[in-house]
């Protein structure tokens, strides 16, 4: 449980962090550490340089209203996301999901940027970012660029981040007033990764769905949108939920692992999608 030897750096600005990152291809950013440090202690991860972003909290920990967009600094901790007045009022799906991440210790250390950049498909926030059409702001040696969440997650723990790039901000378009949302997960213990989690966001015209997004966690190597469900429920009312939810596992490739079989995960995706949509309707 002792990591292999590594260099430790603690930059005091994003520019400095990016320069350090660019200088060592095997470097890793420490932005909370609840996934990275256990992997290092088991020697499953062996970064040669560990770039501790704690000193960037002043620069990168914030939630602000940026004209119809909630701009969230990458170093904002889950607890701060969960308790942000702006998010609780205007993007309650994100605030709620952040309040369900891990346990209190994790939520007081782990950050939104760390979670998204780590890209564990079992994590809660990547699926939520997909549903919210979040835009991720990346900074690297050649400047800053924006990538839609839909284009960010490439595979198991793989993202659009290029060598030397770091995630600095998460930009969440604020959903329409009166939108509905739902977030449900099944896990064996409260602190566990979700066996499956489902996030839903919907806007209605009266009783009928105008716009909907359904996101799935742990149903493949990346977080996924349940496009079949979205298609089936759009233009329909609450009575369409059960039929639409049957399509929740379309196009998914869930793993069979120690927590659950793929078959059970498919079943959970259907059940939890129906529940998330019902929450979003209520």
């Amino acid at each position: 449980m002792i990591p292999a030897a590594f260099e430790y750096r603690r930059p005091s600005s994003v520019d400095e962090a990016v320069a350090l990152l660019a200088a060592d291809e095997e470097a890793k950013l420490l932005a909370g550490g609840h996934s990275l440090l256990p992997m290092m202690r088991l020697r499953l991860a062996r970064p040669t340089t560990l770039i501790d972003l704690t000193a960037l909290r002043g620069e990168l920990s914030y939630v602000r209203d940026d004209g119809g967009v909630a701009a969230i600094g990458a170093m904002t901790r889950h607890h701060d996301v969960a308790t942000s007045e702006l998010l609780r009022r205007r993007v309650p799906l994100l605030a709620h999901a952040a309040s369900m991440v891990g346990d209190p210790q994790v939520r007081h250390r782990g950050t939104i940027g760390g979670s998204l950049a780590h890209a564990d498909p079992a994590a809660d926030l990547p699926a939520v970012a997909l549903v919210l059409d979040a835009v991720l702001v990346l900074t690297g040696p050649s400047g800053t660029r924006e990538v839609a969440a839909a284009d960010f997650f490439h595979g198991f723990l793989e993202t659009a981040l290029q060598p030397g790039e770091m995630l600095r901000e998460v930009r969440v378009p604020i959903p329409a007033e009166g939108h509905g949302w739902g977030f449900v997960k099944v896990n064996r213990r409260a602190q566990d990764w979700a066996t499956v989690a489902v996030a839903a966001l919907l806007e209605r015209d009266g009783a009928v769905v105008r716009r909907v997004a359904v996101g799935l966690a742990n149903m493949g190597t990346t977080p996924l949108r349940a496009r079949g469900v979205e298609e089936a429920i759009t233009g329909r009312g609450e009575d369409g939920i059960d039929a639409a939810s049957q399509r929740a596992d379309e196009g998914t490739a869930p793993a069979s692992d120690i927590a659950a079989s793929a078959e059970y995960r498919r079943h959970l995706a259907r059940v939890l999608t129906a529940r998330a949509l019902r929450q979003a309707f209520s």
Partner: protein
Amino acid sequence: MSILGNRVLRIEDPRLLTEGGTYMDDVPLEGAAHLVYVRSPMAHAAIRGIDTGEARAMPGVIAVLTGADFELPSDPPMGGGDEAMSRPTLARHQVCFAGQSVAIVVAQTRAQAVDAAEMVMLDYDHLPAVVDPEAAAEGAPYVHEAAGTNIVREFGELDPAIFEGCEVVVSQRVVNNRVIASSLETRGAMATWSEDGKLTYWLSTQGVHDARNVLANALKVDAANIRVIAPDVGGGFGTKVGLAPDELLVAAAARAAGVPVRWTETRSEAMANGHGRAQVQHVTVGGSRDGHIEAYQLDILQDVGAYAGIGAFLPQLTRMMACGTYDFPRVAVRARNVVTTTSPVIAYRGAGRPEACAAVERAVDLFANEIGMDPAEVRRRNVITPDKFPFTTKTGATYDSGEYTRALDLVLDAAGYSSLRDEQQRRRQAGDSRLLGLGMSLYVEITAGGGGSEYASIEMRQDGRAILRIGASPQGQGHATVWATMVSDTLGIPIDAVTVISGDTGLVPEGHLTGGSRSVQIAGSAVAETSDLLVQRAREVAAELLEADPADIVHDRTMGRFHVAGVPSSGRGWADIAEAAAPGGLVVEHRFQAKGSTFPFGAHLAVVEVDAETGKVTLQRFVAVDDAGRILNPLLAEGQRHGGIAQGAAQALLEEVRYDADGNLLTSTFADYEVITAAELPDFQLVPMETPTPLNQLGAKGIGESGTVGATPAVHNAVVDALLHLGVRHVDMPCAPERVWTAMRDAGGRTAEVAR
């Protein structure tokens, strides 16, 4: 007036909560090198060679040692078996489970030792893994080829004839899942040898004296030249009884390397070494439709892991306690111990008795379900009635005292059982997807198994402080609080005028261990009797001092003084008496010998809610009656009940050691192995009940393991109860969401699909 029975706060806590404890890894030892084990990544392999050259050349490395560097005895199978199944202290020719230690690196720092351990090159020839105990019992491949079998030993016999004439016979295969004790502090040891060959050895242990004796035998050193010290110990649960090979090797490596050596086990190492439970049971129960059980058979397959250690004894206790609280006319029990290429199985909180209770309580429920009778009623009709004590069961246990029906009624009343049944019915009729399940267990267990003895001495110093030396050493139970309370109570001095010394063979000349829920009744009785003896001795000294007959000396416990009857003004305090007793001093030494085992009992009721769509189980309520005889400190006893119930519920719902088909441990971190947390548990409703035992002056039985004995079957039965109307008869533990969902689906009951 006695302070015993009051909620005296733990005297250990101010130190633990302010300056903090000193656990194994905190103990300073100047110049100590760090030991790290090189462990087998494979479940089963022949060792062709171990290349230590590169590792030796790594920075800071002091020594790299293999089995060839030690002359240590192998441990033959405990309780008997083929010598070919013996366990080497450090593997030499073969590894038989993933995680078995094969080499040792000693380096100046722990990080250097870990780095160098990665450079030890192992050359193996793979052998087939043997993971499934039922397959292992059938035949080849063998874990220990030369033994020609995987069965270590077998005792008892099955007897199908006992079911002749039974109106109803029900059978079920029941898995008692393999679990990990997960004490907060892992194992750890530290050793330093003096130039004249004396060993000082620190160990996170449940008993320093037992550990010392094992060291003396294995290292061929006179026990008088070994001092074993237990610092604060962060939990044991049975896993720190005796001396594990990895612990012994710390002392051997320190001698071989010529430097003081310290070792702290990592969490993943702890999870790969030493599991509990691991039985596959077949229960058969027969009786009449009026609820009378006439015959019970239990067939135990005990997976002992790669080597038969303490795990070999578990089925003996399971067999002894097989009948539980019931007066079954005919009983048959067979047990077979089988080796597999998995971690050795050792003692874990209850050690054989929870397995017995789980089997019989599941069997009684299966029988009740089959005849359509309330499980509480079936229990009432079959329990041993109070007039029959002492009662000797068909499997040879002699229960000292018990009032089983009363325990059951207390728990059911406290829970509001009949209204819970009504609510269950209401939900079933309404098609509620939140299925309600009620599960009960009525248990009896054995504590201080086989009796046993313990050492105590009390010295009254001239400053009025009493020094208690006691053989039992604690792992967080609050021993010092209880002992100090008892001494205070008997002597009539403040609790904080008592110093408790334990856990050091250099300071306490004799002792045994803390385990099997023995401490209050055995060590506690030693403290009680020694306190009485000290008062007696003080009375004699006071008589001389006051020039009176000892019979006329009054001991005033409220003031802690001795005076001549009728002349309280003549009184002398403990300090005066101690001074008068000089130079010999006022000190008594005593060994308490228990008359026999005691049998605590109780009843638990679990209320669970099962999500019909996902199979997820939520433990909603837990009501417990745990009668452990007289309770000396309800606060500490409740703490034992809380922890035990939590661990018991965890086995039923969450915990399960998993290996893949190649014998790789899949549950090697706390991310994979599901230890229960407060978030998964309701408040426990603890109902008091005390039936004193006649076997000791305190009237006390053990409470440490009641929770794991009673809670597991209560929660397990509750899950099955929630699913009965769907046609489910049994679900194996742990009742994880997918397993429950699968059981519902396979029963062909209401499908758990979204569409309704």
